[in-house]
């Protein structure tokens, strides 16, 4: 064990009896934006068509501006590219450009029209199958309120397109009534707010009034004072904890993760590093789904006996959520937690998922904000997708369903590319409401990105990935695909100053 001597943080020694430093966690500046919160009294009477209309009217100006810039002086074969207002106005043989909503016509894609015409009224469970067929039978069409035209051309193979994204295309209509696409433009990244745009006045908590005043003073004097405030902080992001009562294959890793985040594992030097982690974001799928199905389906015969007041207690296994609750309640005294629901979590299925109810967490509940208060809880159960500002950075986080659904449309496996595409489309969940179930919004399509995030997190992904994308107006977005912890045993750390990413992998055995 000669090697061991070289290790700095070596605790393989006699107890030294040294007093241990009491470590304190750096503070987290945190301001959630309730962009995806639904009214308590929500109606499901309305049609979904409004969402497409809203999206088109909102994004169209942006994409047209960009297209006009790009194609203003475009002359192909002596013919200038002319803007056409509506899809129906396209004349055969004329070079023109038009903007509209993409609709993918795919044989494998579930279709509500088909369901209705076949008299199927029970919606099929969502499958993980791809809609994408490699045989070229999938058709890309562009539509607006007036009509629809099929897009063709080799250019389309090189870009990701899904139902619901808004694009501008330039080309000519060919003899088959299809538009030969010469060029294609996305609305591209929306304007990006400055850092500390929302949380200029820190709203740490209701009790810190004196601190608040102090910070406000600082604000007046110099804005830069904020920089050191969050300095050296890190955000930990994890997804797919998948607490389970039956599958204990990653239970030990969960324990180690807990000990790591608590700062109990490892040696004082590393513990000091860990104390810089000032927030944990749990991006979906905290509770394992597998075991719920057998329990729900098996005892169908016994059900009658155990039903009391219409509640079948045998169909519900509380253990996973209790384990999760224990995990959280151990962490919460030392680190604030933002919890997004995911596809497997006990929240509504349709996008945007609403916060997991605090009643699920009997131990951790005390850390949530009191009901009907505007305060932000130390333990914040939020929507999916969720938008907020953490240490001044605008963060957009989702549980991953939006990307998973886009993944079904395309042949590639480039999750980061899909994430980038959603930013460039200015739409975080374009496939809602077509194939991604969504609430039928009437007045506003919250999936339209009005402001560009600095940090865009997507949970529940098969593997870790990160990259930075840049916009034309100087926007910089850090994309992070957060892997499923149960599968990869990885968590992601983001530096709150530089937005640099690192990851921690936990292995056993």
């Amino acid at each position, binding site marked *: 064990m000669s090697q061991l001597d070289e290790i700095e943080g070596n605790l393989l020694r006699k107890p030294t009896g040294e007093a241990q430093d009491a470590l*304190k966690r750096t503070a987290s500046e945190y301001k959630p934006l309730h962009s995806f919160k639904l009214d308590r009294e929500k109606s499901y009477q309305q049609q979904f068509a409004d969402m497409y209309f809203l999206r088109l009217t909102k994004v169209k100006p942006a994409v047209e501006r960009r297209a006009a810039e790009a194609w203003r002086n475009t002359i192909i074969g002596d013919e200038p590219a002319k803007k056409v207002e509506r899809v129906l106005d396209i004349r055969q043989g004329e070079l023109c450009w038009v903007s509209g909503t993409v609709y993918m016509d795919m044989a494998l894609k579930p279709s509500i029209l088909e369901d209705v015409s076949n008299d199927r009224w029970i919606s099929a469970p969502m499958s993980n199958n791809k809609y994408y067929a490699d045989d070229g039978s999938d058709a890309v069409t562009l539509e607006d309120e007036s009509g629809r035209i099929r897009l063709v051309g080799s250019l389309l193979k090189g870009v990701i397109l899904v139902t619901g994204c808004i694009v501008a295309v330039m080309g000519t209509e060919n003899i088959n009534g299809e538009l030969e696409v010469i060029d294609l433009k996305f609305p591209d990244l929306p304007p990006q707010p400055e850092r500390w745009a929302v949380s200029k006045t820190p709203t740490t908590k209701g009790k810190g009034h004196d601190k608040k005043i102090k910070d406000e003073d600082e604000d007046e004097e110099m804005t830069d004072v904020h920089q050191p405030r969050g300095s050296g902080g890190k955000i930990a992001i994890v997804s797919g904890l998948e607490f389970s009562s039956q599958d204990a294959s990653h239970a030990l890793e969960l*324990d*180690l993760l807990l000990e790591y985040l608590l700062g109990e594992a490892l040696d004082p030097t590393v513990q000091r590093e860990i*104390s810089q982690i000032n927030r944990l974001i749990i991006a979906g799928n905290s509770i394992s789904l597998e075991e719920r199905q057998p329990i729900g389906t098996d005892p169908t015969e016994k059900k009658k006996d155990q039903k009391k007041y219409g509640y079948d207690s045998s169909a519900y296994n509380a253990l996973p959520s209790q384990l999760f609750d224990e995990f959280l309640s151990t962490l919460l005294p030392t680190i604030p937690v933002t919890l997004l629901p995911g596809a497997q979590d006990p929240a509504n299925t349709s996008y945007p998922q609403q916060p997991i109810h605090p009643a699920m967490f009997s131990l951790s509940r*005390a850390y949530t904000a009191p009901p009907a208060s505007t305060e932000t809880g130390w333990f914040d159960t939020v929507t999916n997708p969720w938008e907020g500002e953490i240490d001044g950075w605008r963060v957009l986080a989702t549980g991953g369903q939006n990307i998973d659904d886009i993944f079904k449309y395309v042949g590639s496996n480039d999750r980061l590319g899909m994430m980038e595409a959603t930013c460039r489309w200015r739409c975080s969940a374009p496939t809602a409401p077509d194939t991604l179930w969504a609430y039928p919004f009437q007045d506003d399509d919250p999936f339209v990105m009005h402001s560009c995030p600095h940090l865009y997190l997507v949970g529940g992904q098969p593997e870790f990935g990160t990259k930075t994308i840049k916009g034309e107006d100087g926007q910089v977005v850090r994309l992070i695909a957060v892997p499923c912890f149960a599968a990869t045993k990885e968590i992601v750390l983001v530096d709150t100053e530089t937005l640099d990413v690192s990851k921690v992998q*936990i292995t056993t055995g």
Partner: protein
Amino acid sequence: MEDYKQYLAQKILTEDWVVTYRFLSRALRVHVNTAKEMLYDFYKWQNDKRPDTLRATYMIYGTKKILVRQDEDVEMANPQASEAIDAPFSDIVPTYSLSLVSQEQLQESLSKYSKVASIHIYSLAPHSLKDLQILTDMARQAFKLPTTDDKVYGTIANPNAWKRERRGGTIPASSPLEPKIEVNTPVKQEVKPTAKPAAKEEPKINSKPAVPSVPTKTPTSTAPLKRQGSSGISQMFAKATMKPKKPATKATDSPTTSASASGAEDNKNSGAMSDDGEDDTQPVVDVKHEDGNARQARRDRQAELRRMMEESDEEEGSEKSVDNPEDDPMDEEPPPPDAEPELEPEPKVEEPAEVVSSTSGGRRKGRRRVVRKKQVMDENGYLVTIQEQGWESFSEDDTPAPLPKIKQQQQTVKSETTAKLKKGAAKEAGQGNIMSFFSKK
């Protein structure tokens, strides 16, 4: 200082436990880092004395060699992931590895690291752990140990953490539900005396089997009265009389018999509550066989019981006034000292229920006995069944049973209060168990 060695020897060598640093720190109330060192010290000390008596697991943290990491990726990954490596979609980021390894694998694991930032013993066990998942059980143990002050253990403190104040904790929130029932019953009944028995209902439920509580139980049956329809008390008497039936003149040994009877009634209450309707039909047949002797005995018993109830009520009444005066919206409680006049009415109130038996003949009693019969049959009864036959002959006298019963009930009800009327009506409407609402529909 050597205490921990003793503790560890005890736990690991004697009790065959797996001890993690976290568990040790909780158990001895020391900092986790100290606990890690203690584990190592003990490990070294013990293995120097007797090699291989202890097996350790180590926790390593650091950066792994990049080559190794890629290899791992390929191994672990499905074909899709290896594609991803070919096309560098993602930035390469620093990866830290946190490994938990057994001592056998320690060297191998260390060789995978390019830089180890930290290492310590995670756990000690008297044998090598085949499956490290066993450690999760230990982790849960540590979780269960009472943790009073996190500062001792070295958990990173967060001064900003805050909890919301709980308005109305769970316990106060749930407990009002039970009292509420009590509060309601007196209000509905609007019969002053019954309020007390109603309040007693709860204790009764809790302490059914206690023999000395017999007197308490008897009055309480006025509360069930309300729910079952006013048959409760007299049922009880019916039972009480039935039991002594064979011994015939048992009126004096009331404490025990009435105890058993009331116990039986309790069972009946829980079991046959929803059967109200049947009470009316069966009695007709059953009540027949009663003879004068039996009736006499029954009356004696009832008188006796009534006396006992009065006494116990006086006691109980004074207690009650102390216990839960708020329960009762109508201030009957204050007067308990001079309660005699007030308490008097209570027996009277019950009397009508019984009076049925005593004044207007055996009809009602007969019916009630029938109710009791059912119960007896439910439980086990051969002998009991025989008794039923005896009653049947008696009912012949009063064959027109069902109708008069209702009338009489109503009379008594009226004589008491209108509220009781509601109660009676409710009973006929089948009020009672909420389960009946959910059952077969």
